[in-house]
């Protein structure tokens, strides 16, 4: 067994031995992945993960390094980038990833990517045409 394999086994024992906690956070994360277009909140997620709101919040952050809200936002922006690149309009994109208000989508998109959705769309079209 290599040094790296031994390290994997050692770290697994130290950090990932609580299977119930892992199952709860993985289930929560997978629910978020499959429901990006729907309203997702902590109460709903705590029911999915079978843990209290604050316990789930702590667990999710412990295992994924970010809160469920941060993870959801990142996934939504990632998906919206794919949708814009595939030719979806900005309004369609906004609703397809669960935002109800185009202006809040636009603000968040710009803060994450550095471009507004329309600027990003222009760049994507320009790149594609070459």
């Amino acid at each position, binding site marked *: 067994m*290599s040094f*790296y394999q031994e390290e*994997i086994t050692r770290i697994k024992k130290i950090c*990932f031995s609580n299977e119930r906690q892992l199952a709860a956070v*993985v289930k929560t*994360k997978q629910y978020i992945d499959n429901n990006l277009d729907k309203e997702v909140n902590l109460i709903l997620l705590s029911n999915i993960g079978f843990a209290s709101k604050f316990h789930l919040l702590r667990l999710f952050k412990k*295992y*994924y390094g970010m809160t469920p809200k941060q993870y959801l936002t990142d996934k939504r922006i990632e998906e919206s980038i794919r949708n814009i690149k595939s030719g979806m309009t900005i309004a369609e994109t906004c609703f397809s990833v669960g935002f109800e208000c185009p202006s809040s989508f636009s603000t968040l998109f710009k803060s994450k990517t550095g471009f507004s959705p329309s600027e990003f769309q222009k760049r994507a079209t320009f790149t594609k045409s070459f």
Partner: protein
Amino acid sequence: MRVKVISVPVRDQEKALQFYTQKLGFVKKFDVPLGEGNRWLTVVSKEEPEGTEILLEPSPNHLQEAKTYQQALFDKGIPYTQFNVDNTQQEYERLVKLGVEFSVKPTEMGTVKIAVFNDTCGNNIQIVEML
């Protein structure tokens, strides 16, 4: 400041290009001759052609320290870097069929599933699926 290029040290750039494109499925982005047989050679993911480039850098051939470091990591089984995949098991099976050798078979590690293969250019590379 943005991350545009990360480098992977390789002992044979042409062999690395074949492996990273034909086996791993990356596509060549830049190939600029730099004299004495060296190239500025980068590849990108097919899924993200505008994403971060991997520079296949011939540093172990020019700097003994780079070669020593690469060899030490390799001998200990430590990955030089890692790439994300949607499904580690499927990618493992696809690569095994192409003759790629794995030192770590698909293994769950908390919230990720990992596997480690030999890139035939002096490195262990890890693939990661977020569970």
